[in-house]
């Protein structure tokens, strides 16, 4: 196969990977701070994708324009979920909380199935088939826009955590729960805020992803797993790691789909997961686990 095709697919994979990275960033934030293993992560993203589809069908609005409102919806959803339900599980054994999220994931997936049926849905934007050409590389417009949006949102989130007071407070909670309480931080509220941010993040990622892929109710679980693979590969607790992990997975997925067969592409993500768990469990950017 000519080199061009490899390059094109690789570029496409990297761009998609940036969106994956944003999705994983949401999970990393949630797990890194609130220590909740959000097993409903992919399902929440699917919600955002479905909302985008409904709004597009009704108002013909480009998903990217609706990015903020949809992310806001997910923000509220995440806040309520954490404050109302997940919060009381902080002191429970790990698997209890994990199973809680599994239950929520099941409910979300099947509500989607009931509401929208099993068929794939997508959004046909005006630029769905456009592309740009740089040298010998052809870049799909939708992937490009999605990737750019992902970078913007990721940068905003990173900036928030680095430079704002609330962001710093949240990082303090992540570092030391008791210490944070002792200095008077309202940890519960900050946890809820963090979960909300992570949800908004994954909601945004969903809006970008619908430009690239179709959504089905079965998508949720697949992407939840993928998000975990990315976060573990990139390094738990590292935001930059999540983005890098996303790009890596996006790239391998695309190349595997090209070299082998498209339907086998997730197998490589799993192979990477196993390798990472065995040989570098802290991931690319993570700190040593105790």
């Amino acid at each position: 196969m000519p080199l061009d095709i490899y390059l094109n697919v690789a570029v496409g994979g990297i761009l998609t990977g940036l969106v994956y990275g944003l999705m994983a960033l949401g999970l990393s934030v949630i797990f890194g701070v609130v220590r909740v293993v959000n097993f409903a992560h992919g399902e929440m993203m699917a919600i955002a994708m479905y909302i985008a589809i409904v709004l597009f069908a009704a108002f013909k609005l480009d998903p990217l324009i609706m990015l903020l409102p949809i992310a806001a919806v997910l923000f509220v959803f995440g806040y309520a979920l954490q404050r109302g339900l997940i919060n009381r599980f902080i002191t429970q054994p790990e698997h209890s909380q994990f199973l809680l999220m599994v239950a929520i994931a099941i409910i979300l997936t099947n509500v989607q199935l009931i509401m929208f049926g099993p068929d794939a849905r997508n959004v046909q934007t005006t630029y769905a088939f456009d592309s740009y050409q740089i040298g010998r590389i052809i870049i799909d417009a939708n992937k490009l826009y999605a990737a750019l949006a992902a970078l913007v949102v990721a940068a905003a989130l990173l900036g928030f955590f680095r430079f704002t007071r609330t962001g710093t407070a949240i990082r303090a909670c992540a570092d030391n729960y008791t210490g944070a309480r002792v200095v008077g931080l309202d940890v519960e509220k900050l946890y809820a805020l963090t979960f909300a941010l992570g949800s908004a993040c994954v909601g945004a990622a969903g809006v970008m992803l619908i430009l690239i892929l179709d959504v089905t109710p079965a998508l949720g679980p697949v992407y939840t797993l993928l998000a975990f693979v990315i976060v573990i590969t990139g390094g738990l607790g590292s935001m930059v790691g999540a983005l890098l992990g996303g790009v890596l997975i996006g790239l391998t997925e695309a190349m595997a789909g090209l070299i082998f067969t498209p339907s086998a592409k997730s197998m490589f993500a799993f192979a990477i997961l196993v390798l990472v768990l065995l040989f570098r469990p802290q991931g690319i950017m993570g700190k040593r686990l105790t």
Partner: protein
Amino acid sequence: MIARLIGGVPRRALILLALFALATLLAPLVAGDYLLTVFILMLYFAFTGQAWNIMMGFAGQLSLGHALYVGLGAYTTAILFVRYGIPPWIGFLIAAPIAMAVGGAMGFLAFRFKVGGVYFAILTIAFAEFARIGFDHFTWVNGSAGLFLPVAQFTHNDLWRLRGSPTMFYYMMLAATMLAFIGCRLLLKSRLGYYWLAIREDEQAARAVGINAFRYKMIAVVISAGMTSFAGVFYAFFYNNLFPEQIFNISRSIEIILAPLVGGMGTLFGPIFGTFILEGLSEGLRVGLDHAGIDIPGVKQVFYGVVLLVVVVLKPDGVWPWVAKKLGLVEREK
């Protein structure tokens, strides 16, 4: 052995258990075809729940990919039967070691490299998904097109080749579940069982009293995998068709854990009790939906999700321990 089996169990519990066992033996005589199928399914979940429980409730490792072993058991025995005419019981002698080897490999990776808790759960999901996609492309077993067993018209029950009426399958699974129950009870009261309990409670303290945690966790995983693969044999020969997309699907894995979760992980009767609640409620739901004329795929799953949610929030230890206490069946003083 009998003493070990019933030692310490309150009289009341033994009587209830005996009555219950009697009821299960007589059930096919009074149940209609549909109800019998429901019971068979319940036995399937009670059995696999018990097998899963060994890994989780006894060794403390959360597996969300147990469908992997069901699938391995199903596909191995099915393909051997379809291609070479090998009867399922012989096929199982090959299928079980395969499942145990896979489980062992996963356990080895996990425990040697200190992958635990949530990470382990994710690893189990990944393995099952790997199998799902892998078998989809595995042409020798027909891949995604599905593997079909020849369903000849049977005039009599052929237990050896597992061709027969639902009643035959009922008794097969009933025997398996009873053996599993008794087996687990004996295990729990043995040295192995106590070591498992210790590891589950506090692995570091267990090591400090000379317990090789790695070895015993491996044993739990391997037993659990082997047992579960037997359920796969049933699955293949009862339904007579296998699709990787279905049998390795994460939904199957989650269905397996529902009964022990609702009933009570780490208890013996929990998985069985849990199945009753789940199937009972599920049938009630179905009747209700039928009456209301609703037939939408996904409603049953939402229902399962809600039940799981309620149980995790209100009774994370499962419903059975609470019920057992109320009925005065508990052996432990607090």
